[in-house]
């Protein structure tokens, strides 16, 4: 039997998620914001994999989903960086404070 309880994995995922969230909402650098979002996705992946093993109905599905998630995250990073670069070209800055087009 496992000596590490489910809740420990979940707690780890929670901590990472919170760190990612905090980073995503406070960091000024857009690159760091993007990477913080990756961290949040990773935390979610941990949950998926954990439940795939220790869930009420363990199966491979969780891992498959994590895989999908990683794939989508990779795509997202690609697009995100593309936007970042185009933004930088327009504004000469990656400071997220200066991105406030929503206001106008």
């Amino acid at each position, binding site marked *: 039997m496992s000596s590490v309880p489910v809740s420990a994995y979940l*707690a780890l995922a929670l901590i990472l998620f919170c760190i990612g969230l905090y980073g995503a909402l406070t960091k000024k650098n857009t690159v760091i914001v993007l990477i913080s979002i990756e961290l949040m996705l990773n935390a979610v992946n941990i949950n998926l994999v954990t439940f795939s093993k220790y869930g009420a109905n363990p199966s491979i599905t969780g891992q498959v989903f994590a895989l999908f998630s990683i794939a989508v995250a990779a795509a997202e990073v690609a697009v995100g960086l593309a936007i970042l670069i185009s933004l930088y070209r327009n504004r000469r800055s990656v400071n997220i404070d200066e991105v406030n087009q929503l206001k106008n």
Partner: protein
Amino acid sequence: MTLTGEFFAFMSLALVAVIGGVLLLNLTKVVHMVVALVFTFVSIAGIYVLLSAEFLAVVQVMIYSGAITIMMLFGIMLTRHHGDEAEPKGGTLRRLFLLVGVLGFGAAVYFGIYDLDFEAVPNTLHENNTEQIGISLFSHYIIPFELTSVILLAALVGAIVLARRDDEKEGDQE
């Protein structure tokens, strides 16, 4: 809870992951932050191994620790950074507000999971893990799999278009 090797492994991996995350928040240089996060990603790969997901662990190392981190570093390098990486002043109220929110959220979720434990059911995930994933992916999840490829394609095209259109604009201006 018994003190087993698995426990030690988990504890050390988790510790490294969390430290990586905290460093992400506290370091001042962008490159250092990304590097700190590499540790986190690798530890997460280790956690996957503990959770009998060897294939996923490898993918994690390849995609995150490899591809994404490299891309991020390229992004950083492509965008010029002024010397001052110090956080701009102001926004402390919002940070505090957010911190309270995050802690509240964490507490609320932790309240939900802290004594969660399922009846452990014997499983066979660790046997031929990659094969299992492959079977599942190409039989049951074939349509999502194909759709993922569409997404990746779209992302690829999108990224190119985003970058190129700006080039043209710049070219027009120049």
